[in-house]
C-alpha cells in the first residue's frame, strides 16, 4: 500500500478531483479541484498551501556535522549561519549530480537536510570517522509549503529573510518556518512534528482562507516551478545513481548550477572532476526556452486549427534543433497562464545556449511532426521582486 501523509485526513476530504499521484511512496493530490487552474492562480495572486511531507528529511547532528555536509554538498556549508538555509546539489566522485535539496542550520551543531531521493546511506558513508550522526526524520516531520504574495500576511507578517528560518507558533503548536519554496514566489515552508500536523493545517486554513489561500496540488506546483526555472529530479535530470549510462548523468555546470559549486573549498565529493570541468567549460547548458506564439499559430493555421497549448505542464523529452542539427532537448514545459507564453526548460549544447539564440522545437500538430521557432531566454521566466523582498 502507498503511504499517506500526516495531512491525509484533511487533504482526502478536500480532493474533489480524486486525482492523486505518487511522490516518494506517498499519495499526494494532483489537484484538489476538478482543474488545477485556480490553484495555480492562487500561487501567483494570493496563496497556495501544499503538502510537501513526502520530501526526504534528515537531521544531521554533531561537532563535525558542518564538516560532513560541507564535504557532501558542492556549496560552502561551514559558513552557513544558524538560521540560514542553502539550496545545493550534491555529487558523486565523478562530479555528477546525485540529488539537490536544502540544508538548514538549526543550531551550531544541528542541520536539517531535505532531499528528493533517499540519502541516508550516502550521508552515512561520508560520515565514517566523523563526529556526526544522521537521523532519518522523513516520516516523523510533516511539512507544508505556503506560497504566494499573501503568505507573509497569513503567517502574521512574519519577519524572515529569503532563505532564512526561525521558530514560530501556529495554532499554539511550535513549528519551524523557512522562507523557501519551489514556486519562485514569496513563500514559506513550515516544518512540524507529525502529531501536530492536523492542528497546524487547521490553523492555516482558518487564517488563510479569508485571504484567498487554497490548498493546491502538484499540477499547479509544476507550472509554477517551470516559470521559476527550477529543475525537477527524474524529469529534468537523471540522478547519477539511477543513470544506466554516463551520458545520462549531469554535472552541476550542465544544470546551470555553477553558482552553487564552491571550488574554493579544499575538499568535497566530486571536487577534482568539477574543477577539471570548470577549467574546460561544460558542454551542455540548462536554459529557458520560449516558443514563439506566431510560429505556433502558423503551424496550427496550416491545418485549419486555432493554436493549442497544453493545459498542464508536460515532462517528456522533446528535440530542439539548430538548423539540421539537433541542439538539445527540452525536458519539461508548458503554458504559463500568467505570462501568456509557451515556455520550456531545455538542455542545449553549449554552442547553442546563449540567450537570444534562435532555435526550433519539435511540435506535433494533428499527428504530424513540425518545428516551431523558439528562443533561448534567461531563467527564471517569472521572478517577482516579492520573492526576495
Amino acid at each position, binding site marked *: 500500500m*502507498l503511504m499517506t501523509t500526516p495531512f491525509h485526513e484533511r487533504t482526502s476530504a478536500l480532493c474533489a478531483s480524486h486525482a492523486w499521484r505518487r511522490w516518494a511512496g506517498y499519495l499526494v493530490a494532483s489537484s484538489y479541484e476538478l482543474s488545477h487552474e485556480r490553484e495555480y492562480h492562487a500561487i501567483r495572486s494570493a496563496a497556495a498551501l501544499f503538502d510537501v511531507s513526502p520530501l526526504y528529511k534528515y537531521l544531521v547532528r554533531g561537532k563535525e556535522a558542518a564538516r560532513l555536509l560541507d564535504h557532501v554538498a558542492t556549496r560552502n556549508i561551514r559558513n552557513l549561519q544558524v538560521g540560514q538555509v542553502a539550496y545545493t546539489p550534491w555529487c558523486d566522485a565523478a562530479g555528477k549530480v546525485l540529488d539537490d535539496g536544502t540544508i538548514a542550520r538549526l543550531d551550531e551543531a544541528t542541520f536539517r537536510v531535505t532531499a528528493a531521493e533517499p540519502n541516508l546511506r550516502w550521508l552515512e558513508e561520508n560520515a565514517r570517522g566523523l563526529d556526526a550522526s544522521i537521523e532519518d526524520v522523513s516520516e516523523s516531520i510533516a511539512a507544508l509549503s505556503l506560497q504566494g504574495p499573501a503568505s507573509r500576511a497569513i503567517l502574521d507578517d512574519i519577519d524572515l529573510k529569503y532563505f532564512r528560518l526561525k521558530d514560530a507558533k501556529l495554532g499554539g503548536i511550535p513549528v519551524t518556518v523557512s522562507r523557501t519554496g519551489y514556486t519562485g514566489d514569496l513563500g514559506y515552508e513550515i516544518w512540524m512534528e507529525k502529531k501536530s500536523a492536523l492542528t497546524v493545517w487547521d490553523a492555516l486554513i482558518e487564517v488563510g482562507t479569508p485571504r484567498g489561500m487554497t490548498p493546491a496540488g502538484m499540477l499547479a506546483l509544476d507550472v509554477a516551478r517551470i516559470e521559476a526555472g527550477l529543475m525537477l529530479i527524474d524529469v529534468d535530470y537523471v540522478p547519477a545513481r539511477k543513470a544506466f549510462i554516463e551520458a545520462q548523468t549531469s554535472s552541476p555546470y550542465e544544470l546551470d548550477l555553477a553558482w552553487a559549486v564552491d571550488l574554493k573549498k579544499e575538499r568535497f565529493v566530486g571536487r577534482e572532476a568539477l574543477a577539471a570541468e570548470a577549467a574546460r567549460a561544460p558542454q551542455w547548458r540548462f536554459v529557458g526556452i520560449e516558443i514563439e506564439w506566431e510560429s505556433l499559430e502558423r503551424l496550427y493555421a496550416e491545418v485549419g486549427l486555432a493554436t493549442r497549448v497544453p493545459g498542464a505542464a508536460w515532462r517528456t523529452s522533446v528535440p530542439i534543433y539548430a538548423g539540421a542539427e539537433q541542439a538539445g532537448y527540452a525536458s519539461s514545459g508548458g503554458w504559463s497562464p500568467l505570462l501568456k507564453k509557451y515556455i520550456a526548460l531545455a538542455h542545449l549544447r553549449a554552442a547553442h545556449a546563449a540567450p537570444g539564440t534562435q532555435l526550433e522545437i519539435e511540435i506535433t500538430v494533428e499527428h504530424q511532426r513540425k518545428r516551431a521557432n523558439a528562443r533561448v531566454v534567461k531563467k527564471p521566466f517569472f521572478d517577482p521582486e516579492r520573492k526576495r523582498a
Partner: protein
Amino acid sequence: MPKYDAIIIGGGHNGLVCAAYLARAGKKVLVLERRERVGGAAMTEEVFPGFRFSVFSYVVSLLRPEIIRDLELPRHGLHILPLESTITPLDNGDYLGQWNDHDQNRRELARHSLRDAEAYDEFGLMLHQMARAIKPMLAMAPPDPAALSFGELTAMNRLAEHFRALGAKRFHMLHKLLTMSSADFLDEWFESEVLKATKSASGIIGTLLGPRSPGTAYVLLHHYMGELDGVFRAWGFAKGGNGAVSGAIAGAAQAAGAEIRTGATVAQVLVKGSRAIGVVLEGGEEIRASLVVSGADPRRTFLGLVGEKHLPDEFVESIRRFRFRGASAKVNLALGELPNFTCLPGRGPHLRGAISISPSVEYLERAYDEAKYGEISRRPYMDIVIPSMIDPAMAPPGKHVMSIFVQYAPYHLNGGWTDARREALGDAVVDTLAQYAPNLKGAILHRQVVTPADIERIVGLAEGNIFQGELSLQQMFFLRPAPAWARYRTPLSGLYQCGAGTHPGGGVMGASGRNAAHAILRAG
C-alpha cells in the same frame, strides 16, 4: 541420400528449439524422444486426478525473448503470466516481502533496514549493467582464447573490446561477480540477513555449492539475466505449466515441418570413421541423417550414445570430469486449501508470488553442510510457488497445487536413494514448511517427491542435475562442456550438441538449442 537432414536426439525444450530453427531454415528434421511425450524436464503432468503439475522445472525466467518472437510461441499457445513477488517467512513470525511495485518494495525493505532499502536500487542497477556486460556472451558461440585461428582471435578481440568498453569500475565489479561467493558479494551491499539470504539463494540453485562457496555470485547473475531486455516482470509462470513451453515449441517445430517421434529411444549414434551418420533405436531400427544433434547431456551423449572408442582420449577425459552432482529435488503437493502463513495470514497477493524459505545465510549454508557430506538437508532451502493461484486451471476449483523446489538433496546420498529416503525428504520439506504455515499438513491431498535419482531415471539428466551439468565457472563459456568443444560441434563431424550442457547453460533458456541451430546453419 539419407531421409533426414538432421536427427535431434531428445525432445526437451532445447532439442525442440533447435529442431524448430532448423526446420524453419528448410531442413528436414526428425526429433526422437524416448518418453511418450516431449518436453524433457519442461513438462506438465496430471500426477493426481484433477491436479496438474510442472513436475520438474516450474517457472520461466530465462527463456530467450528472441526465441518467443522468432518461433511465434504465443501463436502456439505460450502465455507467460507474471510472478509478482517473493516473501520470505521468518522464525519470529515476521517476513520479508519483495514486491514489484517500487514504492511498496522500498517501504517493506526499509522495515528491515533503511540502508538496504536505499542500496537496493543501486544493486539492481549494478546487476542490470553486469547482465548487460555478460549478455553478448550468451548469444554468441563462445570463442576459445587458447585457439589461434583467425576467427577465434577476431571473436576474442570483439569480446575484449566489449569488456574494455565497460570501463574500469564495471569491469572490476564483473571480476568480483565471477570470483566471489554470493554471500560475500551481497555482504558488500546489504546488512539485512533475510534479504542477503533470499538474494543469495539464486546463487545456489541447481548447484551443490553453498552461498559461501566462491563462484556462486556468478550464478546469481545468471538468474538475473531474465530481467534484461526490458522484460519488466521477468519471472513468470507459463499458463498450463512448463509443459506448455515445450508444447508451444514443439508446435512451432511441427508447423515448420519437423517430424517428432515419441517412444523412440536412441540406443546408439551410428559412426562411420570419424563421422556420425545416423542413429540406432532400441529395437534395432536404423535411421540415417546428414547430421545428428544431441540434446542429451554430455555424459549420455558421448560416453553413452557415441561411445568412448570413437572419441579422442583427451575429450573423453574432459567429459568424464564434467561435474553434474544434482543437488535439487521437487516436492509437488495437491492441496485441499491454501496454506495459511503465520506471518501473512489469509489469501493475500503474496500467494501469487514465490515463497522462499531462506531466513538467513547461515540457514542456507547449514543446509549445504549436510549435503556436502552426503545427507539430505534437515531444514532445506525451498522456493515455492502455487501455480493454481496464477492459473486456476492447474487444479480443481477451490483447490491448489504447490510446487516446492528443494535444496539440498544430493544425488550422491550416503547409502543411495531408496523409497524410504525419498519419503524422509518429503517429510523434512513438509515439516519445515508447516512451521511457517501450520495448516499445511492437513491440507495435503497428495504428495509427489522427485529426487535427483528420479530426475535422472525419468528425464535422463545425468545425476539429476537440472542444468545438464553444474553451472560452475570451471565448466562455463568456452569450457562447457569441454575445452575446444564449446561451440556445439563435437570431435565427430556431423555430430552436434544442443543441450544445456553447452554454453550458456540451463534454466529453460532455449539459448543452447538456438545457438546450436545457428552454428549448424552457418556451417552449411
